[in-house]
């Protein structure tokens, strides 16, 4: 069966994509964020995933507010990025794994997560930027991806508890897929930030630290927050932390924090990167 090798969580601010395009990784403003990826690169080189499942939110590239799915799963063999209107260069396309995606979808629906299934799905900076951060020098992307979009834009949002269970279902689906694929789960966005309103620029390091401290060993401490509480504590866009919670849910076994980097500010955002090691639960022996 396929193996979950671990998780990566990272901010996905569009300005990071711009900094990559402009080769600003070593500028004093950017270095504290980008240097946090040295560990990630070594870890990925060692762990060598074949497939990466991305929990992210679409920012109005693939979905508009006319039809907004709570959870949507890509089921294609290729995914493309495109012009998002704010000047980011279009990223090169990503390979998918439709067969693997359909297995996730089958399991999710059997688990009563009635997802939107997407055979065409543009992926925005929330997938492209983390890919560029994780594999900056790759001539070809070393993984096939499954984009899993979580609605963190249009309230009512799925609750943190629901996102955790949704991730859990995907984790079980991965571990029941025939083969020996090495699967990475990725949660993108966050941490605290708010772009809109008189409270624009709101950042909450205390809450961010609590999230980072609890997510590996005690995620249930974070799943009791309502969406409105998350808005209050993390900001209107800090609710992207739901993507991290779904990623954590997909890590079904024993989870330990391997690395974290936290830096304020990147643009309007408290930027964070974390890596999680994952030991699967021992399989019960057949009687």
């Amino acid at each position, binding site marked *: 069966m396929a193996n979950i090798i671990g998780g990566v969580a990272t901010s996905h601010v569009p300005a990071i994509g711009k900094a990559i395009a402009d080769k600003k990784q070593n500028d004093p403003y950017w270095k504290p964020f980008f240097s946090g990826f040295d560990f990630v690169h070594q870890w990925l080189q060692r762990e060598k995933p074949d497939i990466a499942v991305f929990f992210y939110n679409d920012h*109005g590239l693939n979905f508009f507010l006319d039809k907004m799915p709570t959870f949507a799963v890509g089921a294609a063999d290729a995914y493309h990025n495109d012009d998002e209107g704010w000047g980011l260069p279009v990223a090169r396309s990503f390979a998918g794994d439709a067969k693997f995606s359909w297995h996730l979808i089958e399991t999710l629906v059997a688990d009563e997560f009635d997802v939107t299934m997407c055979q065409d799905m543009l992926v925005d900076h929330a997938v492209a930027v983390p890919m560029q951060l994780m594999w900056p020098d790759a001539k070809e992307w070393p993984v096939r991806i499954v984009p899993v979009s979580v609605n963190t834009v*249009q309230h*009512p949002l799925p609750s943190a508890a629901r996102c955790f269970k949704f991730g859990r279902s995907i984790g079980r689906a991965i571990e029941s897929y025939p083969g020996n694929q090495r699967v990475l789960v990725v949660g993108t966005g966050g941490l605290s930030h708010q772009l809109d309103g008189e*409270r*624009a620029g709101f950042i909450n390091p205390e809450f961010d630290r609590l999230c980072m401290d609890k997510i590996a060993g005690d995620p249930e401490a974070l799943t009791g927050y309502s969406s409105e509480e998350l808005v209050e504590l993390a900001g*209107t866009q800090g609710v992207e932390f739901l993507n991290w919670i779904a990623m954590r849910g997909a890590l079904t076994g024993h989870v330990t924090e391997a690395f974290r980097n936290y830096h304020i500010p990147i643009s309007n955002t408290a930027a964070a990167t974390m890596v999680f090691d994952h030991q699967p639960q021992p399989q019960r022996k057949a009687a």
Partner: protein
Amino acid sequence: MEHHDIPGTTIFDGDQARKGLALNRMCFSFNSAENREAFRRDEDAYCAKYGLTKEQREAVRERNVLKMLAVGGNVYYLAKLAGIFGLNVQDLGAQQTGMSVEEFKQKLVAAGRQ
């Protein structure tokens, strides 16, 4: 819908989404360079084509982000409109908080020293 009051913050719920549909739909169209150019060429005609309300048209004409939010704009979509004017989310933050862009950036840097 009633929400817990968070100062300086609007929850983008169904009420906001209904109010803002025309404005957000126009902003969504700015994913296309051709549409951005059409807006630049004739802003009035472009806004009329998307059926903006009088209040939405005014907020866009004034480039006033808080007013755009009040008439249902969602910031992820408004950011695409702002891109046409060469403004990024830090420029938007400065405008909404009544600070200079430099002051707004400093406020964020200061948050990192907490």
